[in-house]
């Protein structure tokens, strides 16, 4: 008997077919993974199950009974709980309030707070989900918030839990903890559906895997019978190089140097304190850290997008700190911003216009303030060709491209300017496996040509495979500087969480 049996689910948005006759059979008490690249239709399928989208065709059976779920409240009544990628919590309310909201225990017409707290405590003990029922959401960590989301579903008596990319926001330790919780939930009879595009996690935690590609089901496999390589192949539809080969390098002169840089961000009151590092020619320096520990402040401070308070930023002997963003770009800093859609692209501009962002006053694109549109178009077409940008011509708007291709547009624009330094922040966030491979290749290419690269990333695998050295940011300070070959993931995770590490 299947806990969930979806048959021939089809869902279209206008002309886009998000799910095309997808079957999904999830056994009771298993952890079932839905694996696929961004845009493969994973979340759509789950939103159909949870009643957020209405399907165009197909049938859904829960425990062998056909159901017709049209809205989330019905899904909850059927024992389905969904933990979304973006948490749906009220920051200013307590853990308990968030969990019971909408299903409060009552005494007459009043909320029975004592019982609520007791229920939450009992639930959290039963499943090993440690949280303080009285704490406010805004004061607890992201990992704790996720537990609150899980408790919220359990409180509503869910026996089928959908977790949509739950690890994206967690540190490695928190991921381990989440996996422990998932196993315990399974032991106690819950069925879990785990959405991800990360192969390693899939292999670690799941029993069976259903792979989606372009809205279609590719297949369902037993986790024990498969390996990451085959999975990647099924996800992308061709062979994928999973880890890049990095060439050996010898010591070379320092090209880029940051000395005692101090930045204050008044919005979150974060101070970047006395940050110092050096990057040699042809070296990749990785910056590890849980998001919000100063990465954005470092990135924007170096680009002149945010005022710096003191310190030195020296590229090939000259201090950049007094220069404007435009001047820094002109002397050859390529910048791949962490927020692609907010910073890196103008969604409503076509690719040609996006391609000249930052050099719209420079030759050969502009002469005395007049744009050379033929030259811009030629150049855009070259970049589309060279960087394998799919899904568009020079005339389409940037917003119509997929995340991976948008990132290639930025990469193409920045790397074709003969950079003297590359600042790449989260270069593969939200990008599919095929494009990740490509982007990594391009960055290493620049490294081999002698360009210093500062790589800010939340992906430990990415940092370890691309970097020569890694520094760890924690609450605005560099807490460690490590040799990338010597570092192990556990140690890195602990450093990112602000723990002291021996040796």
């Amino acid at each position, binding site marked *: 008997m299947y806990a969930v049996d979806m048959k021939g689910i089809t869902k279209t948005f206008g002309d886009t077919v998000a799910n095309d006759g997808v079957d999904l059979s999830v056994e009771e008490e298993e952890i079932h993974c839905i694996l696929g690249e961004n845009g493969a239709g994973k979340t759509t399928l789950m939103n159909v199950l949870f009643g957020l989208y209405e399907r165009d065709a197909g049938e859904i059976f829960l425990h062998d009974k056909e159901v017709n779920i049209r809205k989330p409240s019905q899904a909850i009544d059927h024992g389905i709980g969904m933990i979304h990628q973006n948490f749906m919590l009220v920051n200013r309310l307590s853990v308990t309030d968030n969990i019971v909201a909408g299903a409060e225990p009552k005494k007459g017409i009043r909320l029975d707070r004592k019982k609520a707290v007791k229920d939450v405590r009992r639930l959290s003990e039963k499943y090993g989900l440690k949280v303080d029922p009285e704490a406010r959401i805004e004061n607890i960590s992201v990992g704790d918030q996720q537990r609150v989301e899980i408790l919220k579903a359990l409180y509503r008596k869910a026996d089928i839990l959908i977790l949509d990319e739950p690890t994206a926001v967690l540190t490695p330790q928190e991921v381990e903890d989440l996996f422990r919780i998932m196993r315990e939930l399974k032991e106690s009879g819950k069925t879990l559906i785990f959405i991800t595009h990360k192969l390693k996690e899939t292999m670690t935690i799941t029993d069976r895997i259903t792979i989606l590609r372009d809205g279609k089901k590719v297949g369902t496999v037993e986790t024990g019978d498969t390996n990451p390589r085959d999975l990647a192949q099924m996800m992308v539809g061709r062979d994928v190089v999973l880890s890049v080969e990095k060439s050996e390098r010898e010591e070379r002169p320092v090209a880029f140097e940051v000395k005692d840089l101090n930045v204050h961000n008044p919005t979150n009151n974060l101070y970047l304190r006395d940050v110092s590092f050096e990057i040699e020619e042809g070296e990749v320096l990785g910056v590890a850290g849980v998001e919000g520990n100063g990465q954005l402040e470092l990135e924007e401070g170096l680009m002149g997008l945010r005022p710096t308070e003191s310190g030195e930023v020296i590229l090939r002997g000259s201090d950049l700190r007094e220069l404007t*963003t435009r001047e820094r770009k002109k002397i050859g800093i390529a910048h791949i*911003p962490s*927020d692609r859609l907010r910073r890196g692209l*103008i969604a*409503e501009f076509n690719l040609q216009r996006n391609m000249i962002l930052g050099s*719209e006053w420079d030759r050969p694109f502009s002469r005395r303030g*007049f744009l050379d549109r033929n030259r811009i178009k030629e150049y855009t077409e070259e970049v589309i060709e060279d960087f394998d940008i799919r899904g568009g011509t020079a005339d389409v708007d940037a917003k119509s491209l997929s995340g991976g291709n948008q990132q290639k547009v930025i990469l193409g624009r920045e790397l074709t300017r003969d950079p003297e330094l590359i600042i790449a922040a989260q270069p593969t966030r939200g990008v599919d496996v095929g494009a990740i491979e490509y982007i990594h290749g391009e960055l290493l290419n620049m490294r081999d040509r002698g360009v210093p690269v500062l790589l800010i990333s939340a992906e430990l695998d990415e940092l370890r495979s691309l970097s020569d050295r890694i520094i760890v940011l924690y609450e605005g300070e560099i807490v460690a500087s490590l040799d990338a070959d010597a570092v192990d993931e556990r140690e890195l995770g602990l450093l990112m969480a602000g723990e002291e590490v021996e040796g």
Partner: protein
Amino acid sequence: MKKVSRLWNWLKDLSGLTELVYSLFAIVFALIIGAILIYLSGHDALEAYYYLFFGAFGNIYNLAQTLLKSIPLIFTGLAVAIGFQSGLFNIGIEGQLYWGAFTTAVVVVSLPGLSGYLLIPIALFAGALAGGIWGAFPGYLKAKTGAHEVITTIMLNYVGILATTFLLKNFFKAPGPVDQTKGIPMQARIPELFPNTRLTWSLFIGIAVIILVKYLFSNTSLGYDLQAVGANTSAAEYGGISVSRVTVLTMTISGAVAALAGSTIVLGVLHRFITNFSPGYGFTGIAVAVLGRNKPEGVLAAALLFGALDAGKVSMQLFTNIPGDLITVVQGLVILLVAAPSLIRLFSSTFGRGRELIASE
């Protein structure tokens, strides 16, 4: 249901045309509602629209009136559109227009000896310069202090209108009961296109400015910066564009174009500066820009439409006893329908495509 959605998609595919189709639909729809209103108020809608059309296009003279009435709207609509292109809402057109008109008139009466070939360009330039400075001021305030341009430009309207009135009354007033400068000499008047129509070469100045602004947006680095700031300020910063510089420049250009509305009226129609001469061209300009979707060519079309409705209104009132206000209602309806494509989208999704359309966006 399928058919409707296919038709819808087909319409959407004509991306360039879509907006035009939307706008035309809106105009037709507004006229239909207008007809119903006219009918309900006890008049003959067909007769009303006959005279409306006749008044706007019936003969050379009427056509000239349509064009004449569109000229100031071309400038003011374009001025608003320029602001919108870089994300600024310039509601100070009225004040900028008064400075343009006043400066032009003062320059002409102070340089009476010059030939028209020199005087007209100098006077236009001086007017544009004055309006540009008046526009740059709120731009500067926004760039330096963050003062919102909507507030500052609204307030500067009053300052502009009253300051020009003050200067006129104290220094430049011609003798007589009316608050006006003395008439400008013959050679400084922009010549008429057709005798006795008051339609002058100003029309072509308007069209030239439209073309110039279109070129600015599509072919120059400055136009690029302007639109980049309007489309995504953070990305513009990332690209190294100075947002404060663009803010000041945009407001300057917008103010200069707005001023030309006043200058061309002084040189072509009134032949002097008179207090309170504008029936709110600056504010109608906002409507024109919205209807024209902030594109130069759209503004031209919208200004012509408004000119036609205005001219037609006159003849309608002359030949029937239908109140002209009903046409103002039609103008309002056009704006409402055009400015609310989201409304149209809502209608379309009610016809079967459901809430997932919204969810997917």
